[in-house]
Every structure is written in structure tokens, then in C-alpha cells.
């Protein structure tokens, strides 16, 4: 499947907040009720369309456990977008946001778009963090904000797509240098004019026809 752009995402946040579930819901439209602790870093991909353009999202789902922090950090580099997730039923996951944010800012490109996500919005009865608090935090740190539920799929699609829209807008505005892969953005095989052999490994890179 050819694409116009490829965006790299990373999902971060405390263990158990639902990072893997968000990814699974986005890529497979499934929900996994059991906490399948992520050990290391997992990977998912999906195609979306923005502004009529096919965009491939390459998503890195990291382990939230403290002991894996050094490993997961090495994945920040080259991410164009980050989903910073907390669990609205657990205040400690909200309190740790600052640490996560510092980590992300330190190890990633400065242009990285960060979406703050309050997950498990289906568990309204057990809510521990008000929506307003999430909004305030996002405002204060210049993040986009959304509450989602990986269980009901509410806002999941939107979270991933809105982040992509923001990145796309930044590209349009010339904020991102799309030729620098460290920014986590890649131009699709048939769209790039330079180095045709370089970018294609799988997919129809061979038929490098002219521009669309």
C-alpha cells in the first residue's frame, strides 16, 4: 500500500493506563480486557486519510513500567507525534505526566506533536481526575487534549487522527523538515524524488512512476 507520508508515533504513559489497548483498538478495532503487560516496545501500523492523502501511521507502543524506561526512551527519537496517556480513574498516572513530558521533550524532536489522553472515559463512576484538570494541564503545556475509551472506542480514532492532522498542518506550515527522518516523517516511496532506492524495502517501490 503506497502512502504520501509516513508519521511515526509513540505512545507513552504509566503502566496500565491503556496504551496497548488504545493501539489495539485503533489498528484492530478490538478491546483486550486482560492487562497484557507490555515488555519492551510493540509496534502497530494503520493507514489513514487526511486531506485526501494516504498517510501511514507507524505506532510504537512502549512499556509503562519504570524498569523499562531506559529501553523505551531510545524509541522517542524520530517520533513525529506522541500520545501521552493517563488513566482518569488513577490520579497517580495523572500526577506522573510532568515526568513523562520532560522525558519526551528531552529525547525527541522539539516539533513533536503531543496529544494528552485521559483514557478509560467509560469508567465515569470511578473517575478520579476531572476532565477540566486534563484540559488545564494540556493548555498549560501546549498539548492537544482528549478523553478516550479504548473499551468503547470513544474518541480513539479521533485521538490518532487529530494528532496526524496537527502534524500534517505543521508540514504545510513548513515547521517540519520532511527530509530529515529524525523528525519522524517520511515521504512515501512514489512521492519522493530523491533516492528512490533508499526508501523502499517493502511495497511497490520498484515501479517508481512519475509524480501523481
Amino acid at each position, binding site marked *: 500500500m503506497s502512502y504520501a507520508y509516513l508519521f511515526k508515533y509513540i505512545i507513552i504513559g504509566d503502566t496500565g493506563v491503556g496504551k496497548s489497548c488504545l493501539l489495539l483498538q485503533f489498528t484492530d478495532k478490538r478491546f483486550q*480486557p486482560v492487562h497484557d503487560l507490555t515488555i519492551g516496545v*510493540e*509496534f502497530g501500523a494503520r493507514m489513514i486519510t487526511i486531506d485526501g492523502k494516504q498517510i501511514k501511521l507507524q505506532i*510504537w507502543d512502549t512499556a509503562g513500567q519504570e524498569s523499562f524506561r531506559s529501553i523505551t526512551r531510545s524509541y522517542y527519537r524520530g517520533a513525529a507525534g506522541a500520545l501521552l496517556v493517563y488513566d482518569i480513574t488513577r490520579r497517580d498516572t495523572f500526577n506522573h505526566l510532568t515526568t513523562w513530558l520532560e522525558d519526551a521533550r528531552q529525547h525527541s524532536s522539539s516539533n513533536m506533536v503531543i496529544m494528552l489522553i485521559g483514557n478509560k472515559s467509560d469508567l465515569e463512576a470511578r473517575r478520579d481526575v476531572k476532565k477540566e484538570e486534563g484540559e488545564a494541564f494540556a493548555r498549560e503545556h501546549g498539548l492537544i487534549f482528549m478523553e478516550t475509551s479504548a473499551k468503547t472506542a470513544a474518541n480513539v480514532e479521533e485521538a490518532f487522527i487529530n494528532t496526524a492532522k496537527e502534524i500534517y498542518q505543521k508540514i504545510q506550515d513548513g515547521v517540519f523538515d520532511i527530509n530529515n527522518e529524525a523528525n519522524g516523517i517520511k515521504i512515501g516511496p512514489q512521492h519522493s524524488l530523491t533516492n528512490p*532506492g533508499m526508501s523502499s524495502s517493502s511495497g511497490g517501490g520498484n515501479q517508481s512512476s512519475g509524480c501523481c
Partner: protein
Amino acid sequence: MSFLQSIDISATASGRGQLIFGDHDGNLHFIDRDLQMSSFKAYILRVTHLYQLKQHNILITVGNDYTPKNPRDDDEGINPLIKVWNLDKIDRSGQPLCSRIVRAVPGNRPTKVTCINAHENLNYMAVGFENGCILLFKGDITKERHSKSRILYESAYMITGIEFKTHTSGKPVIMFVSTLKEVICFNLLPKDRDVKTVLDQHGCPVHCSVMSDISQDNQFVIGRQDAVYFYQPDGRGPCLAFEGDKLRIHWYRGYLVLVSKEVKPSSLIGNVQSPGVHIITVYDIQNKLIAYSGPLPEVTDVLCDWGGLYVLTGDNRLHLLQEKDTQTKLEILFKKNLYHLAISLAQSQQYDQDGIIDIFRQYGDHLYGKGDHDGAIQQYIKTIGKLEASYVIRKTEGRDVDFDVQTAIRVCRQAGYYKHALFLSEHHQQHDWYLKIQLEDIKDYDKALKYIGKLNFPEAEHNLKTYGKILMAEVPMETTELLKRLCTDYKPSDKPLVDAANLDGGAPTVKRANPDEFIHIFVNNHHKHDKLTEFLEHMIKVQPNSSVLIYNTLVELYLQACSHEMEISARVEKERKTLDLLQNPESHYDLDQALVLCQMYNFKAGILYQQIVQYHMDHGEYMHIIETCKRFGQQDPNLWIQALAYFSGKEEDCKQQIIEVLSHIDDRNLLPPLLVIQTLAHNSTATLAVVKDYIVRRLQQENDQIQEDERLIEQYRTDTEKMRTQINELKTSAKLFQVSKCSICCHPLDLPSVHFLCQHSYHQHCFESYAEHEAECPVCLPENRKILDIIRAQEQSRDLHEQFHHQLERAQDGFSVIADYFGRGVFNKMTLITDRSATKSSLRQPPRPPPRKC
């Protein structure tokens, strides 16, 4: 395997049904499936590396044949020779054929080989060296002549692993390389235009990189201290954080095999590595579980073949790790309650359907035991269709737990398992669900109805209200029966007639629903008339004091039935029934309403008005009697007569009333005076004064009438006389046509012309172009026709009248019927006929014969 004990193993390989060992004496040993070993000497000095191709029976070896001249280089592995063996061919000495021998020295700098690999297309062979060089052989690697070598890359670090990405036929050849500090990907393009991509700035030691199989997308796998990393040709992929000092990593059919140093926590000096003991861990990557983990003394290599994993330990023993069969693995998973893993394992192993179902069941049981009933039902649902529904039912029956049956039912229903959803609904008394499913999904109306019939009164009532309409539409008879039961004396159909509660003294309470609330379910139903009638008749029979609504409705039904009945005798019978109902003093219908209805259905209303009057008479309400007469006297003048008879029969003084009644009778000329007198004569109290005015007036009127009649008689007589003379005249004397103008064009007449006795004359050509009929005068024709029509219509009037009404009642669009009649001109006559006074007058003055009109 005792024979291994004598071998000083230096290298191993496996594949194509055999394990291969190289030793420090230059020998190669092959062990086949039957544990038969064969050996031959391949190098004079020693064997250092082995590589077995998978798709070809070709073995590549690295070893030493001679001692280097420079004693400083007299180190193991310097000046290595690569030999390529075709194991399918035997040479003259009975050994496998060595098709190629080539020195493995990068650029004249002797250095140890660290790894060797070849592409399955037999066109690429790469050798890695301690000094960081990679020597690439291109062209047919089995033949001396066709293959050229070059240094592909010189790293600052020791090359620790080389792997070709397989399954990329037709695409550029991809080669992964690990050094102590890097991971690199080479894209080997034609004409040596290679593209090098550094994938990571971290490397790994020797033996710690491996190619995964297609299940992991042929990624390059690197084992490092902190984790196992996967690499794609264009970058780093996922990673698994398995900590520990890794000695070797292998890949075997979806399993990642790690050999690491054992770390024992010690209270004295921190972590101590117990020497010589290694931990071997087998990860099932896809199912994310550890398939095996255990200590073994000093693992030197891991070989895979014959469907098993062989671990070679320092004491030259081979330890077999056999893959457990799926069932055993599943049991392990069950013990650990890792059901979702079990399911994905079973599915990935193409486990049979029943087996998977059983896992779902066990998982369900497990969740159920933990109190996660919703989760449990989700699992049970997956078993439905295979597992007996009763199992699920039984499981979900627990009284003590608050089981979310609704979810279960909903899920079953969504999944199309209606039978099971029904079971659940019935067992859990979810009547509403039961009925919804039965009616909307299964559409078994009989069953639904029977089900309602078994419910307790309030539930039965509620559900019949909700679903009555659809039931009535589908199973009218049964629904009506149930309704009758429900509104009479309801008992659930499967309960004993006398229930225990009533036996111990308590007065049996009769439960019945209000029939009024069920009439609506008959609406818009083509069985409406029969069934509703049946129901209502039943109701007034068992409860004569039924509500006004019931009676009203029944009256309407009866009237409708009458008006629709074409067959005379049946109609008479129906009318009789209607009358019985209307006249029955117990009937609680609303009079006004009933009247409107009677009018609507054109039910010969008299009886009914009389009914009302009678009603008031029975109650002695004089005022109302007069009122009623005034209101309905128009329709039924007999009311006044009835009233007169009533008042005149009264003992008390009803002078006022009688006078009033009389004046009305008088106005309408309802009774011959003689009859009035007779009627009044019955009344002892009626004095002459009461009737005097009436009689005087009547007599006066009679007189006037007589005079008028006489005058008319006289007039008719003269008229007749006149006509007679006219006719006579026409017959006997010549008629003189002295008309001078043509009646059509109004121009002076000239010949030829046409003359009529009606005194109309025409030019011949005018007449011919205008007249419809030769014998008729065009001017008089319309008038004559009209008169003829009137006569004819009067003859037919009765038939027409009835026909019209029938048509009107049956037509969906009554207006169009009326319009049609209008169009045919029938209505003019209709009014003529229905209007009584008009009829009378027209009869009194018969149409005059045509000649007179002209």
C-alpha cells in the same frame, strides 16, 4: 549420545535432517535421524565454522589446512579456508564432493573469521572477520570461477553476525550485519551499488544475532543485555525487554531461544554468577509466553532439527527440548490461568474447533469463578452452537450472584443465537426480552402468546398491552381468547386453578384487566370486526356493568356489521341484534354517541330516538323528553306522537307539555286531528282547554286546505280542458306556421324550412347541422328529456338510492363516488327524491306535457 563424548567439538550446524559437528581435528560428523553417525576429514588442522543452507544440501565450512608461515600468526583460525561441500555428491574417495576451496582473507590482512553466511539463491556469500571486515562473494558460490569477492565494509568493530533476509525473491538482496557496536543493513543492488543503512548504534557479541522467520516478518534479531531488539531493513522494530547477559540467541519455528548466564542473588556480595550454569529460555514470541526456562550446565550450542531443539552442553551432551504438544501447552497455560494465551495458541496451531470451544468454556468458568460474570458470558457466548446451551444456562442460573443476564441475552441475540437468548430470558424471567426475541426475531407468535398466558397477572397484562397489537395481527383467535381470560378472571395457564394461597382462608381475589385498555389493539386490523365483537360480547356477557366505552364500541361494531351486510336475512338478524343491544336497559352506551353512530351508519334511526325518549320517559324527565323531541323530531317525527301519548297517559297534569307537543305536531302536520283527539281522550286530566286551540287551528287549516284544493282542482280542470282543445285542434285543423325567424340562427326564414308543432321553425340546413334527432325539436329537446328523466328516475329511485349508499360506504374515497354521481346528474334527482316535501309537491304537480311548455 556417548559417541559425542570422544569428539572435541569446535563448530555445529543443523538442517536438512541431520546435525553436523566439526571438531578440532578437522573432522566433520553427521548424525542422522536414526542417530547413525558418519564422519570424514575435511581439514588437515581444524574446523572453525559451519553453515548449512536450508534449501540446498550444501554445507559451507571454514577451517585450517596448514600452519601459517609466520609463527606470530600461529593462532587458531588465521589463514582460514572456505570449503563448499555438495552433500548430495560423493567424490572418488567416497567423501562428499568439495566443489570449492577459497581463502578467506580480507585484503591480505590475516584475521579470524567470526561468522559466515550465504544467500539461498547461492549467489551471495558473506564472511565476517574479527577486524571488522566483511568479505562478500558474488556469483555462483559453489564454483571457483564464477564468483568474485570484495570487501563490502570495514567496520571499526568486530563483525558478530551476518544474515540474509530471505523471502525477498526478485527484490534487492538485503543483508543484515551486526558488529560489536552497530547494526547495519546492506541493500545489495546490481553493479555493486550497495546501500548501507546504519540501523542502530548498538551492537551485540558473537552468537547474539539471528534471523527470525516469516512469523516475525524475517526481522533481524539482536540480543543485548537489556532487551532483544528486532530490526527491519529500514529501521528498528519492536523490542522485548528480556534482561540478562546473553550468550547465544537462536530462532526455531517461532520460538526465540536465549542462552544467558544465570544470575543468583546473593546476600553477601550482590549478584553472583554461578560459574558454568546457563539458563536456557524459550520464548513463544507470537503468544508472548515463556515456553521453557531452565538451567543447563555450560551451554555451548543449540541445534534444531528433527522437530526438536538440541542443546549441546560443555560436557558434550545433547539435551533435547521437545516441543510439547498443543494440549500439554494448553494445560500449562490453563494452570496459569492464561486463557487468552491458550486461545491464541490454539488458534495459531489450527487447533480443532471443539478444542477451542472448550478453552472458551474453561476461560468462561474461570472468569465466572472470579465473579466476572460479564466476561464469563462473553466467553460462553463463543461456545454457543457447539456447547450445549444448557451448560451456559446452568452456569448463568446462579441465584446468589448478580449475573448480568441482560448482557448475556443481548449478546446472544445480537449474535443470532435466538434459541439461547430465549432460554436465558425464560430462565431469568426476562419476559420482555423473551417476547421481543420471540416476536421480532423468531416470529413465533403462538409461543409468545402461550408464554404471556403463563405469566402472572401484572406481567401478562403489561405484555399483552405492549405486544397485543402485533399478536392480534398475527394470531387473532388465540389473542382474543387470552384477552378474554385476562379481562375476566385471570389465572396463569400453568398454575393450578386453585392456588395454595387461596386455600388457607383468604378470599380468592379475582384479577382482571380493564378491557377498555385493550380495545386499541384491534385497531387497524382486518380481523377487527369479528374479534373485537367477540371480545366485547364476551365482556358484556360476563360483566354487564361494563364501561360505556365497551358498549359504545360494540354499538358501533354492530352498526357497521349491519351496514355492510348485503344479504337481507342476515342483515335483518344483525339489525335485530343491534336493536336488542340498544334497547337493553343494562346497556351503558352513551346516548349521544350512539345517535351519532346511528346517523353515520344510516341505521333506521327511529327506534333509537324513541329509545332515548323512552329512556327519559322511564325516568320521568319531561324537560328532556321535549328536548329530545325537539332535537331529533326532524329525523323522526313520530317522537312527538310518542310524547303526546306519553303525556296524555300521565295521571298528573301535563297541560304545559301537551300544549307544547301539540303545537309541534300541528306545525309538522304529524297526525290527523282525529287521532290526536283519540290519543288525548285516554287522558283523564286533559281538559278541552288544552286542546281547544289546537282543534280550532286545525279546523281552520283544514278549511283553508280544502279551499286551496278546490281552487287547484278548478285550475287543473281548466288546464286539462285547454289541453284537450289544443290536442283536438292539432288533430283536426291545419296548423299555421307563422313564425318568421329560424330558432337557431335567428335570421328570417326561407325555404326549405322545418316546422314543429311546438311553434319552433328552422332553416333546413340549420336544423340538419344542429339537431340530434330528426323527429325532435332541438330547442325543446333538453326540457323534454329532463321531464322524461324525472319520470324514469322516480321509477328507479329506490334502487339507485340503495346502490349509492352501498357504494359510498365501501369506497375508500367517498368523495369520488359522490362526484361521480354528480357527474351523472343523479344527485339532482336524489335531492328531489329524498327531500320529502319536494317529492310530495312534485307529485302533486305532475310535469306538464311538453306542448304546454312551449
